[in-house]
């Protein structure tokens, strides 16, 4: 049985979804990061505007290529523009 992707949601992404974390099922071979983002935007339409300005992060590393595959058990984070300080 496939493990889900752990999706972490921060700031406006968290507000749009209404929670800070989701478990998201993906095929055993994984799916491209851009496809996962599209699935999330369809499931949570309010997330779409935030996704357009966010960085995507897999297992702690920023995703540079949109076709990078996200696999079961990965951590997938949505980083809206940073606001520390």
């Amino acid at each position, binding site marked *: 049985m496939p493990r889900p992707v752990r999706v*972490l949601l*921060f*700031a406006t992404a*968290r507000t749009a979804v209404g929670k*800070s974390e989701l478990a998201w099922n993906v095929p055993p071979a994984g799916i491209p990061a851009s496809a996962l983002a599209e699935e999330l935007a369809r499931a949570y339409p309010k997330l779409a505007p935030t996704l357009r300005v966010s960085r995507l*992060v897999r297992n*702690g*590393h920023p995703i540079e290529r949109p076709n990078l595959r996200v696999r079961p058990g990965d951590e997938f*984070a949505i*980083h*809206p523009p*940073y*606001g*520390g*300080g």
Partner: protein
Amino acid sequence: MSGSLRLTRRPLSFSAAGRALLGPDLGGVVLFAGRVRAERSGSGRVSALEYEVHLGPALAVMHRLDREARARYGVERTVLWHRVGRVPAGEISVIAGAAAGHRAPAFAAARFLIDELKRTVPIWKTERARPARRPRRPPRPAAARSPD
């Protein structure tokens, strides 16, 4: 290891940062602190900011900034501390500091650290206006203190 990195729920203080920057040849010390401002916002005065952090990537970027500041400016000690969770107005949310033999590199490194922290470290803030209208749980930012 002469850089002190912290992501913590506990209050930050100038005096603790000053102590972290002590050294026999370190004549110039610069500390930048960001404090939560009691600004006017839609729903009244801001009474606090709530900071979230993506802990692992945040510490990784902070480590990189620290190494870069010391390599670029030749400063010997640095601090880069950020508070997470709820920070009341008037309290310190961030301290970036550096110590060197003289003042020019200390100023440059402290400025670099705070500018780059704001630009590249995955931390976010949300305004909290005065009386919290509903008793909501804070968004569980994982907090940690790295080894100094």
